[in-house]
């Protein structure tokens, strides 16, 4: 069993958890992910590592509650345990000093981009971070990101905070300057697809981190396969990061929808079983983005 040391809710759907997993914390690198199971009847769900602390032996994950497992996880907090926590999985990001790097995080992708940005900064790069969300209430980790970047651009679709635009607008402007050497884009499939499209004409290498459906996460099942440069690759062992200009995003997104009807059936079953979620949802609705400053996280844990 793996202990949950704390949970912070960032919005009705997005929350952060700190989990005790010393072996994973000792080995993990930016860009890698974990797989967890809440209980023995549960499914194995992959989540990118948002932060880690080798000394306290903990891993931080940021999760968007969408299906049965993530809704269930959302009800768990300090004092609860989950049955399995496996990792680190996937290849670490290749961190080098290349000059100027743009790190674009969209939605919950703002979390996994953080340790990559930090490592790039530590390696001596100039880091320009773009944090993109639909609206202000879905933003988190602005302070953390500011600490590890030389420049921070916030965008929201409705302009409730930062610039009213999609992530691709400031990205394009940065590409125009001619000073950008590398781009990291992490977020939903469409976001990464359009980030890659934006940078392609400028010939700027763009890494994306793919979030395909997985089972084992060790290369044994092939369920996570994607097409990169016309070749089939397994996200869990060859990735999760790939050259965004080579990825077939439409295939990725189509494969992500594979279990849509079952996911709905499963969630309905879960929700009808679990009256507890009502409480959890009420709790999380009361939380706000301010609670996500580094200090609040530390206090909570």
């Amino acid at each position: 069993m793996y202990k949950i040391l704390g949970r912070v809710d960032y919005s009705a759907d997005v929350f952060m958890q700190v989990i005790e997993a010393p072996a994973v914390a000792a080995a993990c690198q930016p860009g890698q992910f974990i797989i967890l199971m809440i209980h023995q009847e549960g499914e194995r769900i992959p989540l990118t590592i948002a932060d880690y602390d080798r000394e306290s032996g903990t891993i931080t994950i940021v999760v968007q509650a969408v299906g049965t497992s993530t809704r269930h996880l959302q009800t768990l907090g300090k004092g609860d345990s989950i049955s399995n926590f496996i990792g680190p999985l996937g290849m670490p990001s290749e961190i080098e000093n290349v000059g100027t790097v743009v790190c674009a995080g969209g939605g919950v992708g703002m979390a996994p981009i953080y340790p990559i940005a930090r490592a790039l900064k530590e390696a001596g790069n100039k880091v320009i971070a773009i944090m993109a969300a639909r609206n202000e209430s879905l933003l988190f980790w602005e302070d953390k990101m500011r600490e590890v970047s030389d420049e921070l651009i916030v965008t929201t679709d409705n302009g409730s905070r930062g610039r009213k635009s999609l992530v691709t607008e400031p990205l394009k402007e940065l590409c125009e300057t001619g000073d950008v050497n590398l781009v990291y884009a992490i977020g939903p499939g469409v976001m990464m697809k359009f980030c890659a499209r934006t940078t392609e004409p400028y010939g700027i290498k763009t890494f994306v981190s793919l979030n395909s459906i997985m089972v084992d996460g060790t290369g044994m099942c092939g369920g996570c396969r994607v097409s990169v440069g016309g070749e089939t690759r397994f996200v869990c062992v060859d990735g999760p990061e790939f050259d965004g200009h080579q990825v077939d995003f439409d295939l990725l997104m189509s494969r992500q929808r594979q279990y849509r009807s079952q996911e709905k059936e499963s969630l309905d079953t879960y929700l009808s079983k679990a009256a507890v979620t009502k409480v959890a949802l009420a709790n999380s609705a009361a939380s706000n983005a301010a609670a996500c400053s580094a200090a609040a996280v530390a206090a909570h844990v």
Partner: protein
Amino acid sequence: MSEATKTGHGNRPQRQPKRPKLPRTAMPCQPAERRATNFEEVTTGYDDEMAVIEASRCLLCKKPKCVDGCPVGIDIPAFVRLIEVGDPAGAIVKLKETTSFPAVCGRVCPQEEQCEALCVLGNKQEPVAIGRLERYASDWETAHGASVRPRTAPKQGKSVGVVGSGPAGLTCAGELAKMGYDVTIYEALHKPGGVLVYGIPEFRLPQAIVARECEYVESLGVQIKTDYVIGRTLTVDQMLADCHDAIFLANGAGLPSFMDIPGENLNGVYSANEFLTRSNLMKAYRFPEYDTPIAVGRRVAVIGGGNVAMDSARTALRLGAEVHLIYRRTRDEMPARSEEIDHALEEGIVFDLLSNPTQIIGDADGWVNAIEVIDMELGEPDASGRRRPVPLEGSERRIPVDVVIVSVGTNANPLLTRNTTGLDLTNRGNIIADEHTLATSKEGVFAGGDIVTGAATVILAMGAGKTGARSIDRFLQGRPLLTDQEEEAIAAAP
């Protein structure tokens, strides 16, 4: 121990084939129409009377051919004789002298290619049902709880790390624990058992049996650490530097092959590994009670002719689909156990033989809706001695299906080997280990099972586990890995 148990090889009574010729005792099964809708075990096993009758067919040969066919050399006539005289407890003791998990082997070994293929009775009539008798003895033990706890040697104060908890890893760990070593198994998945839990379905090998074998190994003092991916959570080099004096690598052949034909990444196309893992390990066949989903399909095409293909086809059938098994040769060339092929046919799997897939066709939403196959005919024998299938130009046809399960073999998974220094590999990525000692190119590291041989069998993996344990013991005692007699025997062998 009973009198009969002590009857060794030498003074066993040999019987002359003068008694009335009894036919081979049929295996009781669930009726095909019932079992096609449930995941309970297909065969229900001999009762005491059937076992005694079947055992009495054995001629107790002085030079038993069957033993030559057994990859681990079980003293077959001795255990069969014990069953015949009504001493199943003695039979299980005899079996466990050589095989660690008779309940598993009795169910899944390809006996018709091994012991039973060489049984002298097979010349004129049907061979003794050795596998079914092995299973009978182990089921008897389960029911009576008579498991003999082997004596373990005093503690050696040395530690061994075993990677993988399939049959090779479990056997090696159990043997080393009995010799007094501290043993830790590292398993990447959340449950131990390897292919026995993620691949082979419940209706052929109930998971309770595998769980019992794992508990048995733990009861010998072995620690099983699940959720440990070696090469990621910990590397082999770290294991050697920080915690273990020797390592046994038994990480299996778990990397699915695909066919490289158009449409293989469509939704609804699975590797057999994924389909079986979802159903067995994750219990998707009990969705939504268990959270993992599986695409069931109305019509399913399974590609391949081995055990894995049969297991996939029969799983899809039990989930409610009409199943077509597509294989490019004929039934005679199928590598699956013949019992599984018979069972699959009885259950209503449609065999599309001499057919080879050329492409998978999808709909506008990215889902499979048909598979195109081309007819084949058998040409000249290839290197394996099997007649090579050649396509008949222009014979392409489409079979409408909504799920395709690709079961065309597996390769070595590179995750561990890529992250280990100094380990020599074949050009296919398998670990190179000495045939007789299982020593690898890396000091203190031994390897066995599917990761060395490529996808093979449970019994060969167990045998490798035993050999690995013997070598590791000698290595840790500072003795040569082979004795002089063994060296001589190897040199004398043709």
